[in-house]
């Protein structure tokens, strides 16, 4: 729903839900990061999420992998999903006109017993020509504009992911079925996230599965954000047209807005999204109190209220955040240079039986893990 546009309250062609309503879902998630950049096969993450089979209902599964395209690591990798044939030429037209396409290919996928009807997938490795973005935009800004433009305007096409050296694979089905559909075992990455979805109201659209991704940012999410109504209005008026009416979309845009546009650190962005209680802020030492008071007062409309746990992947690392009263499960396990974060401990133990440590982060306390060289 887009309140700020004309005809806002009534069927909006941009909205993918067949009911023109907001998506709500409960889910299972897991992710891990090898901080030493050791790349492992997608088979590992498939195994872990399969352990959480019962947290989904077969209407959505997906994965994001980082470090999977070393041969094109400086190019934006666009994962495109097409469910209408003529959309392909429209999109390729846009790409040709605005970007330089270095390489393109079909994303290998095969119908399985579980998944027989499905969209068509292609990937494009592209560069942003300097002349295109000029000095007024960064290449990232330029990319975002093109991605949002395709998603908003081209019927039958959807950009699933658009980051460098990363990609998202998702669809309608249980995650293990999606993994088999895309042959996830052929990719190797140092960060993986996975999602098993239990949607209550958006059946059947592949783009609606998690992760939701823009540039190299990807998010998998479990929860229903009760403050969605204002988060959506806030981010919409700051130039992010929300076309999918999903929590993940809003969370990703808010993260992008806070970190990329407003230059907050990830830690501060997390305390905007899951702000500490005023009573805790009041008890902080002066300078800290001042900062937290400002963060809350300035970005109150961006704070996420209601149950959630999300994993946020990006090229430099992996972030996990819980809502401020911890209404969704989230556990963190560690083993050597690897950090595992999941809805259920069992799915971590499934792929790493001998953990060094395991703990449940406090409500609203972000877990932020960076890849080694990229430490900020």
């Amino acid at each position, binding site marked *: *729903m887009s*309140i*700020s546009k004309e005809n*806002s*309250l*009534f069927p909006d062609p941009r909205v993918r839900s067949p009911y*023109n*309503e*907001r998506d*709500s*879902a*409960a889910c299972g998630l897991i992710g891990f990061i090898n901080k030493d950049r050791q790349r492992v096969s997608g088979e590992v993450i498939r195994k872990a999420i399969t352990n959480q089979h019962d947290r989904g209902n077969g209407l959505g599964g997906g994965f994001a992998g980082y470090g999977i395209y070393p041969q094109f690591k400086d190019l934006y990798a666009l994962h495109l999903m097409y469910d209408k044939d003529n959309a392909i030429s429209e999109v390729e037209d846009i790409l040709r006109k605005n970007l330089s396409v270095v390489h393109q290919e079909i994303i290998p996928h095969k119908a399985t017993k579980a998944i027989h009807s499905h969209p068509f997938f292609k990937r494009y490795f592209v560069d942003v020509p300097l002349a295109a973005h000029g000095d007024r935009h960064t290449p990232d800004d330029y990319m975002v504009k093109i991605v949002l433009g395709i998603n908003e305007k081209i019927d039958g096409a959807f950009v699933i992911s658009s980051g460098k050296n990363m990609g998202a694979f998702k669809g309608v089905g249980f995650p293990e079925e999606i993994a088999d559909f895309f042959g996830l075992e052929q990719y190797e990455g140092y960060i993986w996230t996975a999602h098993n979805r239990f949607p*209550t109201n958006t059946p059947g659209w592949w783009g609606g599965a998690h992760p939701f991704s823009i540039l190299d940012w990807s998010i998998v999410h479990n*929860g*229903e954000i*009760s*403050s*969605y*109504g*204002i988060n*959506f*209005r*806030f981010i919409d*008026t*700051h130039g992010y047209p929300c076309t999918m009416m999903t929590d993940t979309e809003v969370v990703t845009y808010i993260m992008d807005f806070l970190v990329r546009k*407003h*230059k*907050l650190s990830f830690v*501060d962005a997390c305390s905007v999204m899951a*702000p500490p*209680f*005023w*009573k805790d802020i009041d008890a902080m030492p002066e300078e800290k109190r001042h*900062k937290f*008071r*400002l*963060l*809350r*007062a*300035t970005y*109150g*409309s961006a*704070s996420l*209220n*209601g*149950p959630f746990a999300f994993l946020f992947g990006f090229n430099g690392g992996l972030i996990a955040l819980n809502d*401020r*009263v911890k*209404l969704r499960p989230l556990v963190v396990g560690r083993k050597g240079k690897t950090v595992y974060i999941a809805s259920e401990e069992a799915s971590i133990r499934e792929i790493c039986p001998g953990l060094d440590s395991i703990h449940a982060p406090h409500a609203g306390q972000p877990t932020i893990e960076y890849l080694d060289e990229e430490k900020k």
Partner: protein
Amino acid sequence: MYYEEPGARESLGLRTPKHEDLFHSHPEYKVERDDAKCIRCLCCVRQCPYETTFYDPMRNVVYDVHSNCVNCKRCEVMCPTQAIEIKKWGCGFRENHHWKFRDYGAAYKQSDTGAVVLTGLGNDNPYMSYFDRMVLDASQVTNPSIDPLREPMELRTYIGRKMENLEDFGKESFQEYPNILAEVPIAFAPMSFGAISLNFQKGMAAAAQELGTFFNTGEGGLHEDLLPYKDNAIVQVASGRFGVSKRYLMNSAACEIKIGQGAKPGIGGHLPGEKVTAEISKTRMIPEGSDAISPAPQHDIYSIEDLRLLIYAIKEATEYTRPVSVKIAAVHNVAAIASGIVRAGADIIVVDGFRGGTGAAPKIIRDHVGIPLEVALAAVDERLRREKIRHMASIIATGGIRSSADVVKAIALGADVVYIGTAAMLSAGCTLCQQCHRGKCAWGITTNRPDLLARLPVEMAKERAINLVKGWSREVKEMLGLMGLNSIESLRGNRLKLRGVGLTKLELETLGIRQAGV
């Protein structure tokens, strides 16, 4: 049984009614007294400020001039034997759906005097209430509701301009805007000393201090007795400029420029001479007994540029330490006006709907001018957001907020905070008799006559105002909790929590909400 015997008036020196008097003596109410219960204590005679009830010692009879009764209920409540019941008088005129008492009563009055008919309180006409056509959401299954008795639930709100971003935080160049902190999203509406009693104002001031919120001086200046509460005072600068000085501006938490009032958009404040006592004359700096009629516009504001000058004059005078608020009546085009006001430098914008109360206003204006708060608020919030200037000003909604549900709905539509006026008066015992303009309020709320004032001890006014706001706050927390929220900022502007019932498509769009069921 009641008595109004022939000759009773004469025995008390009253005239026998003449034909022309009949025009305005069709009584609206009847004071019915159960003579068997009446013990002749004469309490009702002493209590009635409206010359309705008399005692004839010769015949030991308590009798009434019914046409004077305004149904303020004071005698009814105070009678020790509950002998009195105020009733609607008879059958009224022949049924007429077009001509109501409000019309012919006013016409009679005006034919007597040729004057403008005054009234008090807010618009009482049967216009539709949008608040009553909006219902709230609740969490079921997919997200849990939160229990305010067991979990923290936050109502704290900062009022004033917010930073656009915090990029410069920590640098020397970082400059914050002054904000004031409300622990509850409910503050007391502007009501001036003079329009209301000093006791009531003190009660609200003390309540605001204890609750961690604000009271508003209205345009009547700040009485010395209120100085201890200055940190909880929003001081008003209106077209009359009563009592305005640098000291006045500094004795405040925030300053407010009053452009308009929901009860009487387009005209200035009105304090009838009857209400201007010695104390009021001192605070307002005007002669005793003189009508204090504020000019309709502020005579130094004929345009938005002029408003900017006044906003900055106040900011200069207060050395940029106070947020400056601008209060306007809800009128057509309110969104564009609000946007201009915010760009002119206002840190707070108060939108006062047409149900808003008044101490005195021409009845015809109160009843026919202005638009409902709900639609005005929705339009203002949406416009400021669309223009990306919502962070530049907080929105205070006022004018007809009747309950905590109205508070929640107003905040969901986009308000930061609400002002309550009539509801605060109710806490002090107001019976909505609409006689505020006469300076005889039977409950000591809108009068400064010492005998009537004594009926409302400050402590009582304070305690009851605190109770009301606390009660509402609890209810707001309950409603937040059931919506799955635990802080008020997640409700603010969260219109998905509202659904319309029985509204047209256009009305839904204007309010920015969806139809119930979808």
